[in-house]
């Protein structure tokens, strides 16, 4: 690859995606600032991410950056346009494990599911994987040999 992406971030003014990459030929670290155009607080982040990734001038540099990451970064930019602080939008990206997902809107739930799907896909065994076993049985320690779970040690007498 000609350009090796190292890090990716945002700049708020003007709204831009910033890429730190290594130039494959010169082995030098460089920074590229890509302004996000025609982007408002009502914009669709996944469309905007796709647009940037396929942009004629930028696509060569963004080969090593996933669409999901670009989408998240656009989300941070959009949150800013909506008046959220950086802390607020980062907190949303780092989901609270105690949050009740039953109570989220469709859009928020879809976002959380997409986040979980990253781990799912990473650990996923597919049918065409050489070590795939359809009926994979694994025995775990018997109930008596298992330790107690901190989730059971709460005040509510669950």
């Amino acid at each position, binding site marked *: 690859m000609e350009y090796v992406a190292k890090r990716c971030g945002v700049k708020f003014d003007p709204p831009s995606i910033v890429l730190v990459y290594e130039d494959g030929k010169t082995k030098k670290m460089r920074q590229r600032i890509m302004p996000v155009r025609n982007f408002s607080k009502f914009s669709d982040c996944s469309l905007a991410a796709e647009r940037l990734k396929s942009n004629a001038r930028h696509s060569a540099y963004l080969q090593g950056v996933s669409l999901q990451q670009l989408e998240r970064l656009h989300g941070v930019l959009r949150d800013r346009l909506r008046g959220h602080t950086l802390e607020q939008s980062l907190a949303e990206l780092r989901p609270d494990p105690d949050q009740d997902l039953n109570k989220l809107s469709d859009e928020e739930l879809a976002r959380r599911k997409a986040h979980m799907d990253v781990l*799912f896909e990473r650990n996923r065994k597919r049918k065409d994987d050489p070590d795939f076993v359809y009926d994979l049985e694994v025995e775990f320690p018997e109930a008596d040999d*298992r*330790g107690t779970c901190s989730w059971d040690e709460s005040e509510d007498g669950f």
Partner: protein
Amino acid sequence: MARGTSDLSELDQEKYDADERVKIICLGDSAVGKSKLMERFLMDGYRPEQLSTYALTLYKYTTTVDGKAVLVDFWDTAGQERFQSMHPSYYYKAHACIMVFDVQRKITYKNLANWYKELREYRPEIPCIVVANKIDADLKVTQRNFNFAKKQGLPLYYVSAADGTNVVKLFKDAIKLAMSYKQNSNDFMDEVMRELENFELEQKEETSDKEDNVSKEEKDQLP
């Protein structure tokens, strides 16, 4: 009913009375992986039937138990769990229940108590399996006991829809439990429902008898 879904009671569920048919329901919070478990079990062979007006997905599966062909309908929620409660018809005539939580999210484990309570209101006796899903995210959880299952006397399965650990075993065992429940069932609620149905039938017969009498009298009066 104040719900975003249509009335499930329009669905024909009498078919589940046939010997070779069982209904197995999935319960649990949003995003615990209920559909992913179904899909891992059925692989390419699945034909989900989206009943979006009912916020419900049906998966049909054919297998043999003790040399007999069995048709299994798996009922999966499609967002209805977000009302923290399911329509009574979801439970109606179910023969077994698969109750899932996410080992990475405590709240989904705590909410099992609510799901279980609702299940037992409608189906006091059907077999129920508790499923700890997503163990691939943290294998250490398999060394921990989840007291809820033990306290309720329910089997607990450690599974992963992603890498497939114990998924097929879970569903095969659920089908076996559903079949043996069906063959040996003298579920109290079933009895009550049957009584109620008979009672309604008798009432209907009485009214139709009266109508018959009236028409007879009318006929008699005719010249």
